[in-house]
């Protein structure tokens, strides 16, 4: 289906009551998740995912997408008001957003953030609409060698982009790969590391581990760091003067546009999602600006740019998922698990095979974007007051949701045990600065990678040259080697390309 027809069809489906309601729920929950510090989109989607098993995949996907970009909207709220990031892609917003709030311009900052997010979201979805179909056609010939190469690149980039040293990032990725080897080997059927337990033979349930790693450990972290966000009340009143003045608008227009386009393409890269684009946008705006000294003191560009970039980044990440079926960050990895649980394996043929699914999801993203604009502009006061919720309720709420979510996957206590254990492990990992994102991504990409490797070698009758003779695979492998040896090259050249901040997404 060509884009225009597809979109029109999708819109006709996206306005059906069920889809509409689920889109709204997703956006609502996403905003809430974004506003609440400690719970990011990963935890938000993972916790809600088991509940989506009962509904059809299209509705489930609509909701999950809503949570994803909704969180990108909501994250700025706490950054601006309380200098605590709602989730990692909003860290940058603190720098100038909170300063603006202190100067009484909280409303303007929030408005810029919301409007920028809206514009960027729309740009991103348009990109998805028009770029995804040709990309999918291109990728039809992708076979095991390409998937192996892409998975390898994805894993290495996520380690590269994490906050800690490359060694730590890679180590976590390898641990994730190891976790993925537990269970029945896909190719030969041999049981691996199952210790004669039927439960282990099924493999370690990824969602349980993720909920433990991102949900339970966050609760433990919240308890540990005795910081509680305090909203100073006088700031809330300034929300009534909501709109930015002309000067702020003038300064923000180009950052919004730049952020939207850049974010989309960067977001499609492995390990990026919404976080990396926001960092890049901030750095870019500061460099381009003729008055960089204003940054850090309340420059509107420092809010508008990053907040736009993270929204289009989220959409960009979904492009790779929906066209290639590869999850390039943790959020899309969870979405992939959900799709598989519903029996749909995303692949380049997904669009051709289930145009219904694809176009409905895309169309509902447009609608969701509108919903979010409404949710985030006029209702911002309501969200802010959410932060005054007593901490004891939040803890209870989150823990219960985690438990219910995990148990409802397969009704096994074993999954709960996994969740608890990884909650503890995740917390310890935070304490020793071992990044969680490479581990999470590796758990999902690992099986794909191993399977593709073995399949490729079967296809080539044992010759490893298959990776070199196929152009796309060869190119990706080259990229992989480049990334791995980049630190060494850097040292030789004497320069340092600093890894961008903790990429939780």
């Amino acid at each position: 289906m060509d884009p225009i027809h597809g979109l029109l069809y999708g819109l006709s489906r996206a306005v059906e009551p069920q889809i509409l309601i689920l889109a709204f729920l997703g956006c609502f929950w996403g905003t809430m998740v974004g506003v609440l510090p400690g719970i990011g989109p990963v935890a938000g989607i993972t916790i809600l995912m088991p509940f989506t098993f009962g509904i059809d995949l299209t509705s489930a996907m609509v909701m999950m997408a809503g949570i994803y970009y909704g969180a990108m909207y909501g994250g700025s709220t706490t950054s601006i008001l309380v200098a605590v990031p709602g989730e990692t892609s909003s860290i940058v917003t603190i720098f100038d957003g909170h300063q603006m709030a202190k100067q009484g311009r909280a409303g303007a900052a929030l408005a810029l953030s919301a409007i920028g997010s809206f514009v960027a979201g729309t740009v991103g979805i348009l990109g998805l609409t028009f770029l995804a179909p040709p990309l999918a056609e291109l990728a039809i010939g992708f076979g095991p060698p390409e998937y192996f190469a892409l998975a390898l690149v994805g894993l290495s980039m996520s380690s590269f982009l994490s906050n800690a040293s490359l060694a730590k990032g890679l180590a976590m990725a390898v641990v994730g790969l190891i976790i993925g080897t537990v269970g029945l080997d896909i190719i030969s059927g041999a049981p691996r590391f199952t210790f004669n337990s039927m439960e282990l033979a099924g493999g370690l349930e990824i969602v349980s581990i993720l909920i433990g790693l991102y949900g339970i450990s966050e609760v433990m972290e919240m308890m540990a760091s005795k910081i509680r966000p305090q909203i100073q009340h006088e700031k809330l009143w300034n929300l009534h003067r909501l709109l930015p003045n002309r000067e702020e608008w003038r300064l923000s227009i180009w950052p919004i546009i730049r952020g939207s386009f850049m974010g989309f393409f960067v977001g499609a890269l492995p390990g990026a999602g919404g976080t990396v684009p926001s960092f890049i946008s901030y750095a870019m705006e500061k460099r381009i600006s003729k008055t960089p000294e204003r940054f850090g003191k309340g420059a509107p560009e420092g809010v508008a740019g990053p907040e736009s970039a993270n929204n289009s980044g989220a959409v960009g990440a979904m492009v790779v998922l929906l066209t290639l079926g590869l999850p390039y960050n943790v959020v899309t990895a969870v979405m992939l698990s959900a799709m598989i649980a519903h029996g749909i394996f995303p692949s380049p043929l997904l669009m051709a095979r289930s145009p219904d699914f694809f176009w409905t999801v895309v169309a509902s993203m447009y609608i969701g974007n509108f919903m979010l604009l409404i949710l985030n502009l006029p209702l911002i006061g309501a969200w802010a007051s959410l932060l005054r919720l007593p901490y004891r309720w939040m803890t209870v709420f989150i823990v219960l949701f985690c438990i219910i979510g995990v148990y409802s996957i397969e009704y096994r206590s074993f999954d709960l045990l996994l969740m608890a254990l990884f909650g503890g492990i995740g917390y310890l990992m935070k304490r020793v600065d071992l990044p969680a994102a490479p581990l999470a991504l590796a758990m999902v990409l690992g099986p794909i990678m191993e399977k593709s490797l073995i399949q490729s070698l079967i296809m080539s009758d044992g010759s490893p040259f298959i990776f070199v003779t196929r152009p796309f695979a060869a190119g990706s492998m080259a990229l992989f080697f480049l990334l791995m040896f980049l630190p060494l090259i850097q040292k030789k050249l004497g320069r340092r390309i600093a890894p961008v901040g903790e990429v939780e997404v």
Partner: protein
Amino acid sequence: MWLMDRISSAVLFAFVIFYTAAGWGLETWAKKAPGPGFMPRLLALALGALAILIWVQAKPSLESQQEVESYSKREPFIIFLLVLAYVFVMPQLGFPLSNFLLVIALRRLVEPGSWRADLAGATGTVAIIHLVFVQILALQFPVFPVWWGE
């Protein structure tokens, strides 16, 4: 971070040894393609090397002693124990009862308030959860404790 890094490295290395031992019997190569043991061996090697690298890279930290101490150790640990306890207790006691106990325990841990508020809150929460998840969404949670029979 220095001590932490060394500990992480040691833990990872111990894990590598365990993993290698567990995967001892797997075939590395089968019939012209990697067998089930190929990836595990490769990963064990990689992790071992990385663990050593982390050990070597451990530097004395710039983080002050104060910062490290500002993290309370007691509460996260209790939460962990509570969740763990829940995992073992729930199949025996049933869903609603376990939730009730968990809510009370968590509330007392986080911000002790009045017992009445806790009890009321717990009952309310459990009731809502039961209503929404068990009745409306029809998820199959074990409602009754094991010794009640089916």
